[in-house]
């Protein structure tokens, strides 16, 4: 029986820490569900939770995720097993199996401009069902959407995302779920975390409450319901370097 982290009837300190990704997802997964995932490319993706979803075999998933991973890493592993029904993404290059399934009609794809996707997540998490943006006006993105003028400029209505589950990756968590991210691995993890009914976070290290600087928390624990700690592969997609002598 997994611990229900955010409603502890005893009123004792919240217990959000789980032993593994599979345990942390226990009771949360169902076929046809909508998952928001953090990450940009392969940077800051919830790789342990994605592995556990693959093992769980949950099907017909819709993912709101900026990218779709590569063939054998990230969401790509769930494409290999045909667990994904639909992707809501801004960019899906670098993934041959994705393209094969998309071109054969097996996989639905909804392109969102990157900032629109991020704001849809942020808005959903903030209880905002829709917002107007200039992004995409006059393009295919605007087709079928409400247009409205403000101060002489035209905007389109975009809807907030409300996901069944959010899966994110952070650098450190304290035991109450306050999260700190590292460098550009923060990316979509913050807005994605907020727009799920339940958020599960995987981190490199869980530290005792009180050890993180309260002024330096990137995402308060109120948004984070379950936490796991684990070793991360953190794969690099484009390894670019310069030579020492050219410095």
């Amino acid at each position, binding site marked *: 029986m997994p611990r229900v982290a955010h409603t502890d009837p005893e009123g004792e300190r919240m217990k959000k820490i789980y032993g593994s990704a599979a345990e942390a997802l226990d009771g949360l997964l169902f076929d046809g569900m909508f998952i928001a995932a953090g990450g*940009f*490319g*392969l*940077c*800051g993706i919830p790789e342990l939770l994605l592995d556990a979803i693959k093992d769980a075999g949950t099907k017909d998933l819709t993912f709101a995720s*900026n990218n779709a991973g590569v063939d054998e890493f990230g969401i790509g592993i769930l494409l290999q097993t045909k667990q994904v029904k639909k992707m809501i*993404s*801004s*960019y*899906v*290059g670098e993934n041959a199996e994705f*393209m094969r399934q998309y071109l054969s009609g097996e996989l639905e794809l909804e*392109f969102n*401009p*990157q*900032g*629109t*996707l*991020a*704001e849809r*997540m*942020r808005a959903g998490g903030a209880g905002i069902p829709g917002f107007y*943006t*200039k*992004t*995409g*006006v*006059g*393009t*295919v*993105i605007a087709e079928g959407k409400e247009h409205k003028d403000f101060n002489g400029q035209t905007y389109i209505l975009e809807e907030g995302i409300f996901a069944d589950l959010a899966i994110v990756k952070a*650098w450190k968590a304290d035991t109450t779920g306050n999260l700190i*991210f*590292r*460098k*550009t*691995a*923060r*990316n*979509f*993890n*913050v*807005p994605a975390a907020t727009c799920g009914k339940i958020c599960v976070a995987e981190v490199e290290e869980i530290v005792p409450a009180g050890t993180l600087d309260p002024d330096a928390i*990137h995402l308060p624990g109120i948004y984070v319901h379950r936490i796991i700690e684990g070793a991360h592969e*953190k*794969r*690099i*997609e*484009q*390894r*670019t*370097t*310069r*030579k*020492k002598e050219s*410095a």
Partner: protein
Amino acid sequence: MPWDRNQMAARAAQELQDGWYVNLGIGIPTLVANYIPEGVEVTLQSENGMLGMGPFPFEGEEDADLINAGKQTITELPHTAYFDSAQSFAMIRGGKIAMAILGAMEVAENGDLANWMIPGKLVKGMGGAMDLVAGVGRVVVVMDHTNKHGESKVLKACTLPLTGKSVVDRIISNLGVLDVVEGGLKIVELADGVTEEELRAATEATIVD
């Protein structure tokens, strides 16, 4: 001789003004960072969540948690700030970024830009391009003036699906520099050794004086 990739990037770098926050797209625009003029301090934004983008790391110092929007490993600078994707596009959409320098497949004389999709071909997505062109203060595109069949990419109207409508301010091509103005495009500058006749012949768009 028309400008090559590096010469286009160097010309585009002349657009930068001291103190600006700028977003550089993938491809030739990325090269612009190599030609920032002496005495001009610009802060480069990477839309995956960083202001103050530094150069590529030395071999062995790559950090999987530190990449640019092209997913390349990069480094930070003393004034770097990190933030999430919603914050990143808030500053883009909110007009805080002074200029974006982007690539283009087609540009039209009214400033329409197409750079994300060729129907019938592999579509990878628009990434942040639509947000950038809709939000930043000034949009400069860097592109080859013609395609490999010699056909103009500077058109009366774009044929490809748009990234943004009436969003381009300036075109820097291998043949020269043109501004989007009332009624069409205005020649600002010719690439070294390129004649006005050559540029006009390679341009389908209306050129106004």
